[in-house]
């Protein structure tokens, strides 16, 4: 048998194979968080510049195969690329590429283009929507309606099409908690009551509408938050007056407490991008982070600030949170270890970060004007109202005129 015959036999192995669908799904979910983190990096000035230089250098190298370009030509191209890159960065700074911002204003479900402030209705009037959240891929909206003595959870496309009810057979009762989407935008986790039992965490498939209970019977579970790898849900577990932070796999297995003996946990607010930490506040007005593998906590704010509702920036370097000023809230930002805390915006609450990490979304309610939903950069620049509130919102009777905000972001 010749060497060629041996090689030909081995080449017969080269046939297409289909990966297992479960592997395909789990790998997709795991990669999605990395892609999103990469997107944040690439949106930065340095990332954009690197990308464009790479393109020019690759082009010059390719060109040299046919006709030698020379070092001078490559340098000229590099200079041109740098100019183009800065022009692109300048253009990017004028827009917010984070998909539509979904709001419920007086029960009307609306999509807001944050680049130009245009608003369109997603559903016809009269739906009385609440508890709005948007899928990370920007395609779907989850919301609740309350009517006729019962609550219903729905999902609908951002174009208003393909509305369907989730978990209809479980007769879910809404608890006013914020729903959380799986990173692959295929499932929603929500806190509900079913019958007369304690609050439970339920996961619903947005395609089939089927829902299943994740947390154990008899355990009061609040404020679910999906991990970025899609495998875990963090939540606040309550035993009597003791409220701690726990995680559980999405199939209901592997539940464990990760906040040590700390009590009074309000609920998990964000996972760090690497999945190592969960940021949260407790009822005494201090911000903590819990180490997921180590199951210990670190306090990040001191006694000088009554701080609540932290959210991590998508790249994990910063946190935003709010500080209680007796008659109003102020929005703060700090490094992810709690150092360098500084006030970002007065009279504002924290609605989480934009997907690209360039803005914090705030419900801004100053005392002398109606205010609105606003974005502001973590360096204090770029403040802009993207959805003005109506005049009745300045009466002081309500903090805001929205019944929910969804931008695909974790929010406290």
């Amino acid at each position, binding site marked *: 048998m010749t060497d060629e015959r041996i090689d030909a036999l*081995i080449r017969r192995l080269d046939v297409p194979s289909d990966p297992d669908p479960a592997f395909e799904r789990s790998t997709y979910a795991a990669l999605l968080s990395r892609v999103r983190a990469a997107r944040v990096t690439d949106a930065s000035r340095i990332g954009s510049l690197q990308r464009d230089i790479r*393109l020019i250098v*690759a082009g010059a190298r390719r060109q040299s195969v*046919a006709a030698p370009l020379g070092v001078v030509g490559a340098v000229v191209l590099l200079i041109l690329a740098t100019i183009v890159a800065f022009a692109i960065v300048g253009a990017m700074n004028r827009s917010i590429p984070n998909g539509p911002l979904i709001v419920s204003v007086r029960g009307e479900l609306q999509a807001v283009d944050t680049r130009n402030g245009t608003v369109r209705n997603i559903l016809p009037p009269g739906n009385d929507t609440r508890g709005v959240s948007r899928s990370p891929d920007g395609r779907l909206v989850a919301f609740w309606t309350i009517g006729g003595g019962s609550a219903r959870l729905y999902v609908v496309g951002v174009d208003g099409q393909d509305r369907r009810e989730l978990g209809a057979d479980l007769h879910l009762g809404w608890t006013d908690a914020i729903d959380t989407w799986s990173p692959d935008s295929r499932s929603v986790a929500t806190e509900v009551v079913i019958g007369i039992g304690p609050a439970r965490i339920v996961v619903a498939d947005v395609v089939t509408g089927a829902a299943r209970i994740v947390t154990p019977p008899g355990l009061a579970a609040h404020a679910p938050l999906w991990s970025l790898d899609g495998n875990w849900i963090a939540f606040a577990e309550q035993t009597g007056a003791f409220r701690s932070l726990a995680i559980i796999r999405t199939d209901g297995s592997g539940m464990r407490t990760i906040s040590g003996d700390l009590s009074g946990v309000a609920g998990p607010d964000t996972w760090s991008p690497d999945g190592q930490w969960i940021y949260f506040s407790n009822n005494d007005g201090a911000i903590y982070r819990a180490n997921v593998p180590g199951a210990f906590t670190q306090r990040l704010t001191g006694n000088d600030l009554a701080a609540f509702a932290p959210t991590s920036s998508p790249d994990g370097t910063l946190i935003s949170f709010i500080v209680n000023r007796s008659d109003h809230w102020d929005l703060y930002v700090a490094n992810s270890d709690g150092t360098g805390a500084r006030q970002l915006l007065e009279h504002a609450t924290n609605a989480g970060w934009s997907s690209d990490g360039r803005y914090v979304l705030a419900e801004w309610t100053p005392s002398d004007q109606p205010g609105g939903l606003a974005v502001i950069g973590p360096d204090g620049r770029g403040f802009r109202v993207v959805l003005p509130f109506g005049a009745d919102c300045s009466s002081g009777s309500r903090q805001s005129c929205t019944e929910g905000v969804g931008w695909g972001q974790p929010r406290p």
Partner: protein
Amino acid sequence: MTARATVSDSVDELQRALADDAGFESWYRRTLPRVYSYLVSRGGGDVALAEELTQQTFIAAIDQRSRYDGRSDTITWLCGIARHKLADHFRAIERDERRQMRMEVRQIEFSQGPRADLGPEDRTMIAEILRSLPASQRAVLVFVALDDLPVAEAARLLGKSRGATESLLFRAREAFRRAYVAESPDD
């Protein structure tokens, strides 16, 4: 289409794939089966290994996206990364085999005999034979016979000299030949 336009289009393809979730999903669904197939066939049909290396390949691709220069399409680029992951795997296995060889020589002699139920040209049998070879021999056959790489390129991937790789390839073909003839004496 000019060479520059081709390079630019390829880079654009990757940028579009990473620009939003929908683009990524579409790109992922298109490229995953190709990368997976590449690794299953070269890993001797070992599904668990192929899945592990496929994940590693995509993670490396995302982390090293700035290195993609558009001179090949993204599937070729991904398979290039997968090839390096496979080479890393073979090198790790080879180290383990060297360690175990001294301890388990008797067990190897009593390993299971030839499978008579397989036809002479059955892919499963070929994969089995390939899998039975030492990792270094398997690796050189995969890269030279399956990937059609020059010996010098296979040597670079395996971290060996060209002479050592040629010698390894000779031994690998001999081992494959012996095993194949033993499994299908009529061939």
